């Protein structure tokens, strides 16, 4: 059995002449036959140093937190605004195509977005309902500029 031990430490300056540092030691056991494979062994050593360097930098940058169990809210605890689903966008485009409407222009007039892709889930739902409610022959939805 072969033991590799790699260490890495780094210190970063902070305001008012302060500093912050982190160091890590990583040990890994490898099959001893790797000594007959210098390239393989060097790769493992490089990898181990990468691992040590990565973990120190992650610690210093504050990104070494474990992933959240669920990501339904953003970091500040507020709910993220969810964009329209692919099905909704496909439906909006299909209805607009049948009625000779420009979906992006409609989205802009109705909700002030640059493209329908930027509609939220609820906006897309509202737009679909409005499009479906208007008979095909008189499709003139969204001409009077709603707001987000």
């Amino acid at each position, binding site marked *: 059995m072969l033991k590799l031990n790699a260490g890495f430490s780094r210190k970063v300056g902070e305001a008012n002449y302060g500093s912050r540092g982190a160091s890590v030691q990583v040990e890994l056991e490898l099959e001893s036959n790797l000594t007959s494979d210098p390239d393989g062994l060097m790769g493992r050593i490089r990898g181990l140093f990468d691992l040590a360097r990565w973990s120190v930098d992650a610690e210093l940058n504050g990104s070494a937190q474990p*992933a959240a*169990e669920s990501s339904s809210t953003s970091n500040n605890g507020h709910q993220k605004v969810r964009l329209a*689903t692919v099905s909704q966008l496909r439906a909006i485009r299909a209805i607009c195509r049948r009625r000779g409407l420009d979906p992006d222009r409609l989205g802009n007039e109705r909700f002030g977005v640059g493209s329908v892709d930027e509609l939220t889930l609820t906006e897309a739902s509202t737009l679909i309902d409005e499009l479906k409610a208007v008979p095909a022959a008189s499709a003139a939805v969204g001409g009077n500029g709603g707001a987000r």
Partner: protein
Amino acid sequence: MTASTSDAAYRHALQVLEDPNRVAGQLIGRDYLSHSSIRTYQRCPLQFYFQYVAGLEPEFKSASLVFGGAIHAAIEQHFLRLLEGERTPTLDRLMHAFDVEWQHSAGDRVRYGRSETPASLRDLAGRMLAAFQAHEVSRLDSSAQLIGIEEELRAPIIADCPDVLGRIDLITATSGALRITDFKTARTGWHAAQVAEAAPQQLLYADLVQPLADSLGCRKIEIRWIVITKARQPVIEQHTLSPEPAQIARTRRIVRRVWQAITQENFYPNPSAMNCATCPYQQACREWEG
């Protein structure tokens, strides 16, 4: 497969700190986990290896798998038309969607069951889709919003694991609840055991749709299975589940354990009379030296 324990340990050590999506990309050729891949590992780790790590072509496709996919395509067509405000599609239109999907997926390596032929399966599809159309499950409640059909969602819902990717058959919302529906074809009606077996996938999907529920102000997520039986006179069944947070958390932990086993390259056969008979890697398994 030929990797030493140390290689696996090294990969595992990297996985602790590295982006799991990247690890997944290197190991299984895709930077996410699907429930189907997790289920494959649970059924037989060696089958998982053949399919996702070695990337072997399956020796055959099961006709029932292709059939299920084609029925899904027809039902997708039905709800797409509803979402677009069109009239309910005719049975012919649904059968056209079935045929297109069948031709697309079947190829020349379909393995049929006893007494199954392409024609008999097409007849069966016609009966099942007619039963679907006649049943209330094909109609939308006037208060329900259709949010997604065959909607693909992907999110990092499990710590230290790659993103989970799910394709959800139907997502609808009412004033208080977001409902995810999974359509199933089955020889006979479902009992509690089948619901329990199907639950983990939908529990993961419940996690995936949580941001949608939040965005729509839905306080509750409901899981529904619609089972269409493959019978002379098909029957439509509905089964529902309101997931508890503890059930979702347990499912996440199980997936995490499966992922850990995958990254440690724990690949071994899990012989079973039921699974081996339908496994599309039987020859590769026989030739595998261990």
